[in-house]
């Protein structure tokens, strides 16, 4: 092979490499599920970011006069989704609740993702006793059911929004760790790693700039799915009374707990936050599934 030929091959490889993501995007666009998911997530994020502009009322403003005749008057022109048991506008609370859910989702997944990437990469790339030690720790964490562990951590740290985020993040750590370690292991033995090592590239550089970029795609898929579970878990912890300490905080899980006792008289108070949770979680799940299919090398070029 001449030098020119070699150079042209390199260009081809780079082209193929860049094509991984554009290809994935192309296939994502053809997946109706993923599009629905993307739309749901886009609405969710938009509502969360623009909450003060969209909400018709202050989510904490009470109007006890509205509930003198009992809980709770249903939807009306002034309160599109009705008011809750303290006369607060349900729609505004759901809109502001999106904000908290998004915050909880992003922060807790970031915590889990960053810790998981660090531990998984070290464990997979260096192997040996470090790997054994870290994996046994991960085994211990995986042996405890996730939600139970989250409850335990919040019980330890004390209830509160920040503690909930930390707890859900920690619960996610072993999942990300395992996933990344597996894919780093697969990449580690590849020829390009051997080549890099042969020309004397430092191990750290190999890990960060050669192995990680190739191993990260399953973790990203898992990250999207974890966002969905984080929202559910946060709502669950809120439901158990471990969420924000100020009970007037508009958090979807809290809103469900507060209205359980009105299921017979005002079921809409539980239905609306429930639907909000379902839709946002569904959105992230659909996108996650779509991404997984799009990034799966076995399915490449099919669609």
């Amino acid at each position, binding site marked *: 092979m001449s030098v020119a030929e070699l150079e042209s091959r390199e260009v081809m490889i780079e082209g193929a490499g860049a094509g991984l993501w554009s290809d994935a995007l192309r296939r994502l666009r053809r997946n109706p599920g993923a599009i629905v998911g993307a739309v749901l997530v886009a609405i969710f994020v938009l509502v969360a970011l623009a909450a003060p502009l969209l909400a018709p009322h202050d989510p904490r403003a*009470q109007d006890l006069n509205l509930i003198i005749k*009992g809980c709770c008057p249903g939807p009306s022109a002034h309160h599109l989704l009705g008011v809750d048991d*303290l006369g607060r506008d349900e729609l505004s609370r759901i809109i502001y609740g999106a904000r908290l859910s998004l915050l909880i989702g992003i922060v807790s997944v970031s915590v889990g993702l960053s810790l998981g990437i660090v531990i998984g990469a070290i464990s997979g790339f260096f192997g040996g006793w470090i790997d054994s030690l870290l994996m046994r720790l991960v085994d211990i964490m995986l042996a405890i059911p996730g939600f139970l562990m989250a409850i335990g951590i919040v019980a330890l740290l004390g209830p509160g929004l920040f503690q909930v985020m930390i707890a859900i993040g920690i619960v996610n750590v072993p999942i990300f760790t395992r996933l990344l370690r597996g894919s780093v292991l697969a990449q580690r033995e590849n020829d390009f790693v051997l080549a890099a090592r042969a020309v004397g590239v430092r191990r750290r550089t190999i890990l960060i700039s050669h192995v990680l970029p190739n191993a990260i795609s399953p973790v990203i898929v898992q990250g999207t799915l974890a966002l969905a579970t984080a929202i559910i878990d946060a709502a669950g912890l809120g439901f158990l009374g471990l969420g924000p*300490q100020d*009970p007037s905080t508009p958090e979807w899980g809290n809103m469900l707990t507060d209205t359980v006792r009105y299921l*017979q008289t005002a079921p809409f108070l539980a239905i609306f936050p429930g639907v909000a949770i379902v839709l946002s979680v569904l959105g992230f799940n659909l996108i996650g599934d779509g991404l997984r299919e799009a990034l799966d090398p076995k399915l490449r070029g099919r669609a």
Partner: protein
Amino acid sequence: MRKLSRASIVLGLLALVVVAVAYGARSHKSASDTLVFGSSADPVALDGALISDGESGRVIIQIYEGLVALKPGTTNVVPSLATSWKASAGGKSWTFSLRKGVKFSDGTPFNASAVCANFNRWYNFTGSFQNPSATYYWQTVFGGFKTYDPKSGAPKGSLFKSCKVVNASTATINLTSASASFLGALSLPSFFMESPTAMAKYGANQGSVDADGVFHPTGTYATAHPTGTGPFMLQSWTRGDKLVLVRNPNYWGKPAHLSTLIFRPIADNAARLQALQNGEIQGYDLVEPQDISTIKSDGNLKLLSRPPFNVGIVGMNQSIAPMNNLKVRQAVAYGLDRQSVVNAFYGGRGVVAKEFQPPSLFGYAKNVKTYAYNPAKSRALLKAAGLKLPVKISFWYPTSVSRPYMPDPTKNFQAFSASLTKAGFKVVPHAAPWNPDYLGGVQDGKAQVYLYGWTGDFGDPDDFDGVFFRTPQNQWGFHNKAIFSILTKARDEPTLSKRIALYQQANRMLMDFLPGVPYVHTSPALAFTKNVTGYVPSPVDIQLFSSVSVG
């Protein structure tokens, strides 16, 4: 496949038949003279001396009787096992004439020696029986025991001195000091008369305290062989399932209409309502405000109300600054929108409280200082106190609890928090589970501002004002000698007209001094099916079922 589906159809039909038969059998049974009452929990024990909870009292009052009782539907003391009584030696000595010919349900006679045996049993309790979780009411009313045990937590010295058998139907109780509230207290289930023979036979004086500091009787008397003189007797008790009482055929008074009375514990309020609607039970207590309209609109059900005999309070701890400043306490009082809270959360069954005791009780004063919601005035008071707005306060509220005076504490907290914020405060929320964290924290004096309340046990103002303010307590954190002494004087005064005047004066002093802000008296509701008659709701939480019938 086809065979299978035919088989399943047959099975389904069969199941339907079984259900229909079972339903028919049940509705047939409910037309008899049996009543099933939905309680919120199992009794702790069926030995009045060892309990302080309402669910135990609810059953005990059917089985046992006291020397005195409360007239149904009121808190007036009337004769029961004692037909009359007389105080002498300036209220220190009380002679009771006992009803003749009364027998315990084990056949042994009720007489003066049985009365003294009961009093001496309580007074001679030792060891784990001196634990406040075992003998709460003895310690509240009579103080300590014969032998003082510093480890037990019981106070030293007792109001009780001795019990003397004058003749078979006359007994004299001697006290160490004069007390006027003592007589009303004898109507409590904790001072009901129990058969000394049965207690000895079934080990009533055996018990221990568990790791959590809670007392449990270990003999079989309190669980399987409670023996009293009342209109009902225990037949069987399966914990978590049902407690069955049957009519006492040898009852001295008018026999009970019901031949069988069953208490079924159903912890969840919504589940109790459903059980009532589908006929599993015929009545239950402590209906939640949001269920009232459901019950009213159901043609098969009816709602009964207890006279208000409780108080909801926003407590303030003066040992935590700035609550020691009267202006700040007044600012809190003016800053609580009590009227809106009472209107919104009590289903029309609450009134705004002006004093710490309910209006139906003697000693209620007409002209106390009142504090209508006025946030501007609160802010002015805070500024006058030299504080910078907003003033930060830590506000405690309990979780996982429902009381007649606060069906949902979280809602009360949120509404008060919003109105206090308008009045120049910055409210820092502090939530804790009712038992033990919340009650413990509040009673240890850790809570600055907190939700609190009380349901009366018997008809005496000492059971309200006295419980809170007669002695220095960590939870209020103040030492006001004038208030302590007037409440002690009022408790011991034997002449009723003088007592009334003293309590009225005390109530005026309290509302000026403002150790807390009383905000509601509620009238708790009970629900029954329409065919239940004869139930007279009592202001205190327990009453007899002997006049009840199912028609």
